[in-house]
């Protein structure tokens, strides 16, 4: 009997076992990025910056040169790398707390400078690593360990819409919100990630892909339930779509 390989680990993904919870979608996002790096033949020419949060170990999961930034500072670190080595591809991988709370200033100014780096932004509306606290993207009424009565928008404000906020900045070359909530969405997400890296390769400016994701552990739902919950609740607050595309038709 002949065996045929249909799918294997992308070269840009390290053999190291993920530290993520069962049902977590970080692994899917990691794989998509790795496939894109392989397809664009960028593995050996890429530097990545991991955030503080659940994906703090991401620098170990990608088989590219990597570091981990202080909480919220990933795009500043990536800026330093890119300015030192403009010939290399640089990307950050950040969660909602990292990118849209403690790192908001860095996020906005990196985007506004049109820094030629790529950010993959995982939005699951909660702080995972620290145990389920309220995030800047936590939905109205959503219960977390620091909003035990549900997010009261009169008290702590509304969920931040990162894509909508960055959309008006002229330095942004590519900006899309995708999800990982169905096979079709996952394929769509990969296309967006690829375009984001192409935007960087072409030197068009800053590129960011917001990935609507889940957190079964801290949402207190099974993996399947969490996907259903996200489809029902997250997509209404965070509609998918392309916000900025200066890349155009890419292969």
């Amino acid at each position, binding site marked *: 009997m002949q065996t045929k390989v249909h799918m294997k680990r992308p070269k840009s993904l390290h053999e190291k076992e993920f530290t993520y919870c069962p049902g977590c979608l970080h692994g899917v996002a990691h794989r998509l990025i790795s496939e894109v790096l392989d397809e664009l033949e960028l593995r*050996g020419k890429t530097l990545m910056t991991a955030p503080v949060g659940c994906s703090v170990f991401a620098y170990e999961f990608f088989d590219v*040169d990597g570091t981990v930034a*202080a909480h919220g*500072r990933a795009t500043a670190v990536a800026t*330093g790398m890119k300015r030192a080595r403009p010939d290399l591809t640089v990307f950050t991988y950040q969660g909602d707390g990292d990118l849209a709370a403690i790192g908001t200033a*860095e996020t906005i100014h990196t985007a506004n400078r049109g820094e030629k780096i790529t950010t993959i932004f995982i939005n699951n509306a909660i702080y995972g690593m620290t145990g389920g606290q309220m995030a800047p993207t936590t939905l109205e009424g959503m219960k977390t360990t620091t909003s035990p009565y549900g997010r009261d928008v009169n008290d702590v404000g509304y969920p931040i819409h990162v894509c909508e906020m960055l959309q008006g900045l002229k330095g942004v070359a590519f900006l899309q919100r995708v999800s990982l909530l169905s096979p079709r969405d996952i394929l769509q997400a990969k296309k967006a990630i690829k375009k984001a890296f192409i935007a960087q390769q072409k030197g068009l400016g800053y590129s960011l892909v917001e990935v609507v994701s889940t957190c079964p552990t801290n949402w207190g739902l099974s993996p399947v339930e969490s996907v259903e919950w996200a489809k029902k609740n997250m997509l209404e607050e965070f509609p998918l779509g392309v916000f900025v595309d200066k890349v155009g038709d890419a292969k």
Partner: protein
Amino acid sequence: MNEQLMMKGTEAMGEAAIRAGCRLYFGYPITPQSELTEYMSRRLPEVEGTFLQAESEVAAVNMVYGAACTGTRVFTSTSSPGFSLMQEGVSYIAGARLPSVFINVVRGGPGLGDIQPAQSDYFQGTKGGGHGDYHLIVLAPSTLQEAVDHVSLAFDLADTYRVPALIMADGLLGQMMEPVCLPEMKPRHDHERHMHWAMRGSEGRESYKITSFDIDPVKLEEMNIGYQKTYREVEKNETRFESYQMEDAQVAFVAYGTMARIIKTVVQMARAEGLRVGLIRPITLWPFPYAAIRQAAEKLQMVMTVEMSAGQMLEDVRLAVEGRVPTPFYGRMGGVVPTPTEVLQALKREWEVE
């Protein structure tokens, strides 16, 4: 020897960094060192370098982190409140062992303080500043020529030990003009000796990881033991100080930076009155010249510390002297620079000359 140029302190240090092979600067304007940031913005494009004005000191220090990850000479400059903002990043840089250089043109504090020269950031500079067990190599120039020389030295020491280096200047050194000899221009320095860790893309090799992080306490302790081992080496090899008129001295002043420069005048004034006084000037504030001060104290009647602070280095002087002789202190705070006359009077008050 190159020709002498009349330069302002901040600009002389900026030019010295470029001549030391540094082509990357990230910074945020703050008085009294904004001229350094301005100088880099003007000068770096002329030498195919990169200048970037960050959105904050927090961003600037993390840009330094990122650039240093690639094994390329990089520096930033700031003044006291700005350096406070950078402390998180400095701690990460020390933990990740990234060679980089910081210049703190110290001004009066705490809080917003003022923009006058001060030495009240000694604790912050020498005792860590940020969280965790770490040190920076801290250089304290007392003339512009020394400041220029210290810039090259800071880069070399940071590269040699993979310990970030800090130049503690003060507003006076930053703002005054003095003749300086600049070193020869070096090309962009990417320290090839650091090829075994620098992030430049993993083509043809395993991927490199740079962090100040290990979730396993035993491994993190190993990392810490590594830092400490390096610090002991730095202490052994790089402790620097100057002895001024100490041969027959009965009393030693200990002062650094601008204050040491003023003390040299005090020493001359005191000696003109027949008082046998000298100066021990720490050039490296970390590592601190404990042994030199201890040895000197054996033969002295008094060791008097003078600082433009409430007495911060004083604690290290007392650790060095270990109670052998009295260790009085004189200082002014808030950006007030002591005059030679008032220091001489303070000396006479403390030292009851028979």
